[in-house]
């Protein structure tokens, strides 16, 4: 399947925005991890902003960056949100409450616990009535989202915003699901080449498992394996590079997805 990229966005430790991260991802500058300042979800009305945690804010901020740099209105596209898990802080709070003697779950926490909370707040923030889906593929969620977005473009849509995000889990969840760093990325994908296209992608399902792509920089490779959404890094690095590349992403426990990347 052929599709085009109009913009990319990234928010992670030491990678704050596409423009500031491009040279690092291309290997032209050294990666220097630094704690990520909490993203500001300035798309959201203040009252809603107070109700949302870091997961929603990260997803909204990175999605907003992608649309802004593509020069498209925020309410103009269908969206695909992917993450391995819901907001870990919310799940932790709810599970502590339910394990205790008084099971008074906070109503706001409960509606923020759904996997599609970022998608819901995206709608509230952008006033977009376009379809939005929220998917999960455990560690392979980014590849699943790319596949879904590509299928949407093939089947019936002209543009799709893909947003991948996962935030650190608190203890004790971290003990069994060790996600320690936040990572968000977004791609504005189009069916046809436009005058804003920055790259062409060819997405294909591999018949058999192929060696997956890794990051050559050790710290970036650590980030890639730490956070499920950071499995997007090899694709983002290819988008930052001038050379055509063929990368391989894992799409489930045993299968892979091949993505050819040709930047313009």
């Amino acid at each position, binding site marked *: *399947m052929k599709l085009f990229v109009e913009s990319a966005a990234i928010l992670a430790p030491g990678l704050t925005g596409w423009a500031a991260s491009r040279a690092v991802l291309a290997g032209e500058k050294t990666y220097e991890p630094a704690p990520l300042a909490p993203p500001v979800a300035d798309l959201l009305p203040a009252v809603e902003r107070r109700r949302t945690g870091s997961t929603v804010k990260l997803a909204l901020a990175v999605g907003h960056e992608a649309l802004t740099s593509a020069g498209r209105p925020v*309410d103009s596209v269908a969206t695909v949100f992917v993450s*391995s*898990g*819901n907001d870990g802080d919310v*799940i932790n709070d*709810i*599970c*502590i*409450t*339910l*394990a205790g003697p008084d*099971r*008074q*779950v*906070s*109503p706001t926490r*409960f*509606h923020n*616990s*759904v*996997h*599609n909370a970022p*998608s*819901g*707040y995206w*709608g*509230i923030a*952008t*006033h*977009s*009535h*376009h*379809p*939005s*889906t*929220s*998917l*999960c*593929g*455990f560690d392979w*969620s980014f590849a*699943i989202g790319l*596949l*879904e977005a590509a*299928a*949407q473009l*093939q*089947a*019936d849509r002209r543009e799709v915003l893909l947003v991948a995000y996962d935030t650190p889990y608190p203890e*004790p*969840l971290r*003990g*069994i*699901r060790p996600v320690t760093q936040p990572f968000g990325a977004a791609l504005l994908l189009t069916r046809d080449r436009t005058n804003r296209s920055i790259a062409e992608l060819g997405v294909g*399902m591999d018949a058999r498992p192929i060696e997956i792509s890794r990051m050559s920089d050790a710290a970036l490779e650590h980030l890639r394996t730490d956070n499920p959404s950071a499995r997007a890094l090899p694709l983002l690095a290819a988008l930052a590079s001038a050379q055509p590349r063929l990368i391989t992403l894992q*799409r*489930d*426990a045993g*299968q892979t997805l091949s993505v050819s990347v040709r930047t313009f």
Partner: protein
Amino acid sequence: MQPLFFNRYAVASSAGIGLDSTAQALGEMRSGLAACAFETARLDTFVGQISDSLLAPVRADLAAFDCRNNRVAQLCLQQDGFDQSVMAAREKYGPARIGVFVGTSTSGIHETELAYRRRDAAGALPADFRYATTHNTYSVAWFVQSYFGLTGASMAISTACSSSAKAFGSAARMIAAGLCDAAVVGGVDSLCLTTLYGFGSLGLLSPVGCRPFDADRDGISIGEGAGMVLLEKMADGSPAESIALLGVGESSDAYHMSTPHPEGLGARMAMEQALMSAGLRPGAVDYINLHGTGTRSNDATEDKAVCAVFGNDTPCSSTKGWTGHTLGACGAIDAIICALAIERGFMPGSVNTRTLDPALGLRYLLDNRSQPVDIAMSNAFGFGGTNCSLLLGRVQP
């Protein structure tokens, strides 16, 4: 869209295990709801619970996936010849050409709820707790994929109560894009404390069993269950007549996280898009299976939306009084109830509903009707303002 036929479908809920027992419960107006006695939940509400004795451990080779949610999934896969049909399709198309698209809201979160009770002195979760294959949202799709040894695209769709309706959309696009020849599409959700106490905190649980569209309706009854469809592209060798997915419509309310748009704007858009995708006029639809949860606001806004698209003459009902609100599974379960209605020529009424709310305008069926149904719509709406409508019908390839 090109119609995609239902090669086989199966269902399991508190109303019935398998198609025949579900059809029988519908026919006899026998609700699956009962006073809540789930685990340690102490709530003044009714639930649609599948008897624990029916929920056998998952197949031994998949023991890592064992949890209530995957047990519910397995129970469904074993009904109505579903597993044999998937294995036959696997033989026909090859495992790489069959995708898995499963909607779920809470997956196996109940395992984590239980594990939190067993935290050690340092606060750590027990070593035998398996997160990835139980609680993680993908667990149920991974389980279904592993159950059949499939290697096509596999994903969990988790958009709260529209999850498994939207799973049909993802599957249809994947087939249209040529990435799959067939798809196992469905939804699975199971009782857990998070949803019981969560909806309780929102004041949305009915103390007496949900009564959709009733003047005295007072909330939802949470249910559990699964619905599974083997969806296939039409080709030579397809059956002479079958049930098919004709259209899918999806939209976002862009209004509020847990309250539907007051005018039903998103719901209307989803129904209109479904009609457009099927190339049908509203008058072609014989029956609408409503989302009809039984909350004051859902039923009132869905009523406005349906009347805006269809007027007030199309027969409608909600079957949540039988199954309870099965959350992420209701899109698939309700689509299967529509398939039963088409296949067996009846329109379900509404168990539990006594006095229709005079403020609501759509043509709501209280009693079952024996009547041919050629085209049916199924609505599913969820938290986050997510809406999905499906159109199903009888097709002759």
